[in-house]
């Protein structure tokens, strides 16, 4: 709804506030008046009226065009396809290269993903006021600098897509390991939204390997969601998940995409490699059947593309399975300076130290990981593991 209002009124603040006001009105009136026959259309119409009221109040009629748009508020609700198009346009606006990368991610999460400012602030490890200012400043620049709401021209598209994929991957990850202390550990609304938006981008660019790779990566990750949190609310690691609970349809689609990319013979990018790693995992009927040498080989390729310490950490987890916990621990300890503030670094160290029966050190590492982890199910799992040390 924000997307179509933004397109119509050309102002993100007005769109957002009008949508929020419409929902507030619904909460007030529906219990007394009953839910209208078509709640979606009711909300859209109400939000349109609220937006027009606001524009009138604030005398924001700066041009004739906006006035003309305001007069058409009895137009029928747009068909679903048009709303999807609006979302794609809004994604390209939020991911515009004239905005700082951190602002692009924050805006997309706020306006396309619908996250709250505190949730986004937590995701980026900054204060709420900093994040609020960042979003306000970015919206101000979109309006003042004339950043358009539209899909870029064919010549600009490949470059613009890379930025969009990075943002969509972030939205997905926020959904898959939600960071809020009071939110569900896995936010299906966000992962589903990220997958939906990636599918839209793929329709736009069906031959782009990285778009297909990101979609495959999301599908193969999302497929494991039903087995990811135990009945007790603890995160279940990959090796201990009930593989019968995995979504076979999503896995089949993900594998199909990965095979399609392999058959293309083109050199894989980052998302295609991550998708291939996930394809190896989801190919094993039992965790013990995992082809770890294949996983490590794929991580070796990934390290050449992306020499970041987080990739090195994930590679070390696979090395532990292939060459033993001691070899992996030696690799991980070299990453301490870069990853000391990252909960997964300490969680991985704790697990390796546990396997090596260095209990006291393992316990200390679990304590660090628990202190840094933001996900409720992960905290529960880590606490459980720590307490098992006795």
């Amino acid at each position, binding site marked *: 709804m924000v997307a179509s209002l933004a397109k119509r009124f050309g102002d993100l603040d007005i769109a957002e506030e009008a949508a929020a006001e419409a929902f507030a009105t619904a909460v007030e009136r529906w219990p007394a008046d009953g839910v209208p026959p078509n709640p979606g259309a009711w909300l859209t119409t109400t939000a349109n009226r609220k937006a027009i009221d606001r524009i009138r109040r604030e005398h924001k009629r700066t041009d004739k065009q906006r006035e003309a748009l305001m007069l058409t508020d009895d137009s029928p609700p747009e068909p679903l396809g048009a709303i999807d198009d609006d979302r794609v346009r809004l994604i390209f606006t939020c991911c515009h290269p004239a905005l700082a990368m951190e602002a692009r991610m924050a805006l997309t999460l706020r306006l396309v993903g619908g996250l709250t400012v505190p949730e986004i602030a937590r995701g980026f490890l900054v204060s709420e006021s900093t994040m609020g200012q960042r979003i306000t400043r970015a919206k101000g620049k979109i309006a003042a*600098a004339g950043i358009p709401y539209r899909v870029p*021209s064919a010549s600009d598209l490949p470059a613009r897509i890379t930025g969009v994929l990075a943002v969509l991957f972030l939205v997905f990850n926020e959904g898959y390991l939600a960071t809020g202390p009071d939110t569900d550990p896995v936010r299906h609304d966000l992962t589903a939204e990220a997958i939906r938006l990636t599918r839209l981008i793929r329709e736009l660019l069906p031959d782009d390997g990285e778009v297909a790779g990101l979609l495959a990566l999301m599908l193969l990750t999302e497929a494991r969601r039903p087995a990811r949190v135990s009945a007790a609310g603890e995160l279940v690691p990959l090796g201990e998940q009930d593989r019968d609970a995995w979504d076979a349809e999503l896995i089949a689609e993900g594998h199909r995409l990965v095979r399609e990319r392999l058959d293309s013979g083109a050199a894989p990018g980052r998302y295609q490699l991550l998708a291939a790693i996930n394809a190896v995992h989801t190919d094993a009927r039992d965790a013990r059947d995992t082809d770890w040498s294949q996983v490590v080989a794929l991580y070796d390729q990934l390290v050449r593309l992306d020499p970041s310490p987080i990739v090195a950490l994930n590679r070390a987890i696979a090395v532990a399975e292939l060459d033993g916990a001691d070899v992996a621990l030696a690799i991980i300890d070299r990453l301490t300076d870069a990853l000391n503030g990252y909960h997964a670094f300490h969680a991985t160290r704790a697990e390796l130290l546990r396997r090596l029966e260095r209990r006291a050190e393992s316990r200390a590492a679990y304590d660090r990981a628990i202190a840094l982890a933001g996900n409720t199910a992960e905290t529960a799992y880590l606490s459980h593991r720590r307490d098992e040390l006795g």
Partner: protein
Amino acid sequence: MQYLVSVIHDKTNSGTPEEARAIDEFNDRLRAGGHWVFAAGLAAPSTSTVIDGRGDEPVFTDGPFIESKEHMAGFWIIDAPDLDVALELMADGSKACNRRLEVRPILAVGA
């Protein structure tokens, strides 16, 4: 809307004849496309004078008002429907004058 496009000058040599020709051709394109409003090159920052007319008597001092390695060597004012059009146009402008550019929206009158 209109944009001020500043030419960021960070070298000591002045514009070459090739650059001047490329800029002329680029300006012709701007005019043909209806994007041209105004453009000019600027003399060296050392030739500038700072004015403070806020007191009883105006005070004039030798410029520039900001000492920096980079300065504005010239500018365009262009008309473009949105930032994407402005950026695409001025990417060619940057190539023509062989300098980095900064695109900044001009506030609409009455906004």
